[in-house]
């Protein structure tokens, strides 16, 4: 992997981490505001896992 591709992948991972972090916070607030607002229709753990993995991979590469 050349350094340019590495920078590109890191940038995409950073964006993914930021997007999932903001999304998770919004979902958390919505669920806190009205119980079931999120959990009845969507498993927000998916976002959490996405956030953790993008963060870990970002740190590794």
């Amino acid at each position: 992997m050349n350094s340019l591709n590495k920078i590109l992948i890191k940038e995409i991972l950073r964006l993914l981490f930021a997007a999932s972090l903001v999304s998770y916070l919004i979902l958390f607030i919505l669920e806190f505001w009205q119980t079931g607002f999120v959990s009845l229709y969507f498993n927000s753990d998916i976002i959490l896992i996405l956030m953790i993995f993008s963060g870990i991979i970002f740190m590794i590469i």
Partner: protein
Amino acid sequence: MEKSILVKIFKWLFIALAALLIIFLFWKNYSPTGEQTIDYNFTKNNFTAGLNPSARVQKIVCDKTGCGQAVFNDPTYLDMIMPRRFQTADVKLTLDNPNDFDVYFGVKTGPGWQYALSKVDQNGNAHLDLSVAYINKRTAEFILSIPSLKDNKYSVTVKGIKFTFKKDNFLKKILNKL
């Protein structure tokens, strides 16, 4: 393709996906089309934990044709989380009722033991007026009454309860005003 353009595409893709998820959740919770269907077929369901009390129903049994729960005493209840307040509900019950017992389905209308019952027809359909429903902490309580089961001798198996909740079509109202 230039790297910065690729990064921009990904940035807007992630923003669009997050926005779509939020829109999807608001759409589901507010039902702007005025209709929401909840199909409870005795498998895991986020809206309800199933028929209760356990002393009047048997355990849920699943086979090749699907899952079901036998009711052997009267009445039984079904707590359901209501995402919104709806005006009416069309209920379709899938029953295994070999003795053709009369079946009633209803909704709790006030604190204590107050229910509005509706007779279930031969096809398993019932119509409920939810404008009088007593909803506590976003949860409505429904009642399934089969008076002939009072003496524990017989049972009726419920294989599915499909709710079609209806309220004003908010989207249509807005479109008409435009």
